[in-house]
């Protein structure tokens, strides 16, 4: 994704067990903050179909 121009950090992966509620909260908080800092995604966000 980054290779074709999606900003670094917009795509994130985590491995969280169903028992790790604290980690889940931490990750969600971090990811949300990181994505908010990047601002709205303009690439790869389809609006109304552009034709012609």
């Amino acid at each position: 994704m980054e290779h074709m121009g999606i900003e670094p950090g917009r795509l994130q992966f985590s491995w969280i067990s169903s028992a790790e509620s604290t980690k889940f909260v931490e990750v969600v908080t971090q990811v949300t903050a990181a994505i908010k800092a990047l601002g709205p995604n303009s690439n790869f966000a389809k609006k109304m179909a552009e034709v012609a």
Partner: protein
Amino acid sequence: MLSYTEKIREIAGRLLQSGAVEMVIGFRAGTVPMMNEPHFAKTPADVQKLVWDSHCGINLANYLTDRKEKIGVLAKGCDSRNIVTHIIENKIKREQLVIIGVPCKGMVDKRKIAMKAETEITEVIEAETTITAKGHGFSKTFEKKDVLQHNCSLCIHRNPVIHDEMVAPPVVEQQGVDRYADVRSIAAMTPEQRWKYFEDLLAPCIRCYACRNACPLCYCPTCFVDESRPQWVGKSLDPSDVRTFHFLRAYHCAGRCTDCGACERACPVGINMRTFTKKLEQDCLDLFGWEVGLDPEVRPPLDVYRPQDPNDFIK
């Protein structure tokens, strides 16, 4: 490579006559310059149509998918690696095949020659290391190595990796090839530049799906772009739909693509879509030490779990 034709006919004739195979898949001479057509031979007359030259770039593994007969198939290095992939993915059984290996010195890129010609090319004459293109009042001789398909010039597996017959002794493999210069040049760009680069790359796409259909890996009964319930991708020329198609198709080829160049060769509007797949190829090599289609007994990296698989990207 021109001397291969006779040997190919001899092997094909023998295999058909002995009943070892029901058909031999190869090429017959094309109707336009620099094109040959995939062709199946079942009779001695068909066998006499089989030819070999520098215009046999189409990947014949694509014609094996789900076939039930016993088949003799001509295989360049890349074709043979795709045949291995087909065997691993259960698209054909090894026992069904007699693989006729063709040591390859690279296929000629007709677009490169056309761009260097001042007029329409009406005739092409090939010698061992050169190729002469002729048109109205025009004649020019090229060194083959200067007009190879880009993937062929980077190829390090010119000899078939699996074969039952060989039409000639192996050729010398290219050494010290820098296979990923294109990937690095994109990696050096900013995200905005990369986005723009791929936007320009895909702008001429007409979604004819020649790239997908020429690819031996793209054998899904229904491609995700053709799904209608639900419909994942729009059908128009909307740039995000076009990109979704190319980008997801590349992903589906991760760890499977042999860089045979069939996609680029097939494209009617000249898109170099290998720019997508090369990145994935390089990642598979760097992260998993994986080169596609060298051994039918080894499962591909995206198919197996190993404790040492890199997982730094997971937080």
